[in-house]
């Protein structure tokens, strides 16, 4: 069973990515989590900060482009992992260890099987 482990981070954590004093520690925790997941990971990506995001909407054939993320909330999409787990209980156990669980949050969702 494939699940997406979706990472929501707060601004402070996005800032830590590029803060010379904190970035080593920040990336180390994510490296450790990646290692922890090991061969259960089949894909994923870390995303740039929301200041780089552009949101597009098509309404009545008209394209509306907006600077920024879809929803302006305190916790922002920071990236995701695609993992393999036996069931939701195991997926939740794996998501528990995600660094953003302590500061922001982690969402677990089953991947929609296609075909």
């Amino acid at each position, binding site marked *: 069973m494939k699940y997406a482990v979706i990472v929501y981070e707060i601004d402070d954590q996005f800032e830590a990515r590029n803060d010379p004093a904190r970035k080593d520690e920040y990336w180390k925790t994510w490296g450790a989590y990646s290692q922890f997941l090991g061969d259960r990971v089949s894909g994923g990506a870390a995303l740039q900060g929301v200041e780089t995001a552009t949101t597009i909407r098509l309404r009545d054939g008209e394209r509306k482009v907006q600077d920024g993320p879809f929803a302006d909330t305190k916790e922002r999409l920071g990236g995701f992992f695609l993992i393999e787990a036996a069931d*939701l209980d195991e997926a*939740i156990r794996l998501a528990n260890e995600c660094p953003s669980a302590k500061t922001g949050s982690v969402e677990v969702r089953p991947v929609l099987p296609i075909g």
Partner: protein
Amino acid sequence: MRTPDPQAAAAEAARDAYGRLVAWLARRTGDLAGAEDALADAFESALQSWPRDGVPDRPEAWLFQAARRRGIDAHRRRLVRDQAEATLELMMVDREEAPSEDHRLGLMGLCAHEAIDPGIRAPLMMQTILGLNAEQIGRAFGVAAATMGQRLGRAKRKIKEAKIPFEPELDRARLAVVCEAIYGAFGIASEAGLRDATQDALVLGRLAHRASGEDPETGGLLALMLHVDARRDARRLGGRYVPLDEQDTGRWRRDRIVEAESVLMAAARHRRPGRFQLEAAIQSAHAQRALSGRTDWDAITDLYERLLAHNDSAGARLGWIASLAESRSPSTALQALNAEPSEVTDTQPGWALRAHLAEALGQDPRPAAEKAIALSPDPAVQAHLSTRYFATR
């Protein structure tokens, strides 16, 4: 179990067999909605024919065979495009005997899984284990049938799509969550005077107690619900709300109290106290008033202190403080109340207690009573407080 007449007993037998089969199928397929679908027609005809023709000798075997026959018909009609795993599973079981294992406790655990919205856990148990439909459950909880149906459907889809696992054995922590879900539904229902929902919760409590091999905490839960249910007719008098210490004990149901006491005593023999046993013991101490004419407030204060060590909640704290007013003094109780945070004091029972203590201390109870009235969802409770504190004397 609702009433002793044979028709109700037949319906009860049908629900019992249905719940067992749903649990057994759901465990094998992981598809709860599919299991219900596969058994729906057979269950419907059992509900119709058993009260009329009598309960068959082997109720589950009857239901199982009927479901298999109908499953095969339905399967022929729908062919394979449909992913009715449970129906296919039902057809493939190659034996005459109906499944004998009882996995209903596991099914309760599935319904009360941490990933399921707490508010829908007990309704989900009522549907899958007791075979009640969305309309009956909606009516029991005062929710529109369509809304209840959608919420139940969403929960079942999540179980299947997110693959929430069916664990046949529940550890103590998960058993506690199951008890919590049942008691939550019971509490809401009895506060609101929803008679059917309280009885359904009681049936679930009995089932959990039996299926868990009479675990002391499920015993505590059952005893607690029985004690509260015993006072159902005394809590309202002609639509008027009557608080516990003013209730006429002659209106308490003795059979319920006797059963509660025997279940609680059996639980206590395990010497493994827990939240529900302690709450039941507090209600048991209140029930003694029916025999002795007085309430042992020292014992109640002591039980609340032990309860708080197990399970700290606003309700337990207020119960403890209210007991202090009787076992110590109203001023000791007021001191304790003033030491509590606003999450505890700024609530309906918090303000009601403050009004009561103010009155006992010869102070003006009305400012607190006003807040308690404003926070009461129940008009009968509002009327009771208005009469008590604002009637011209």
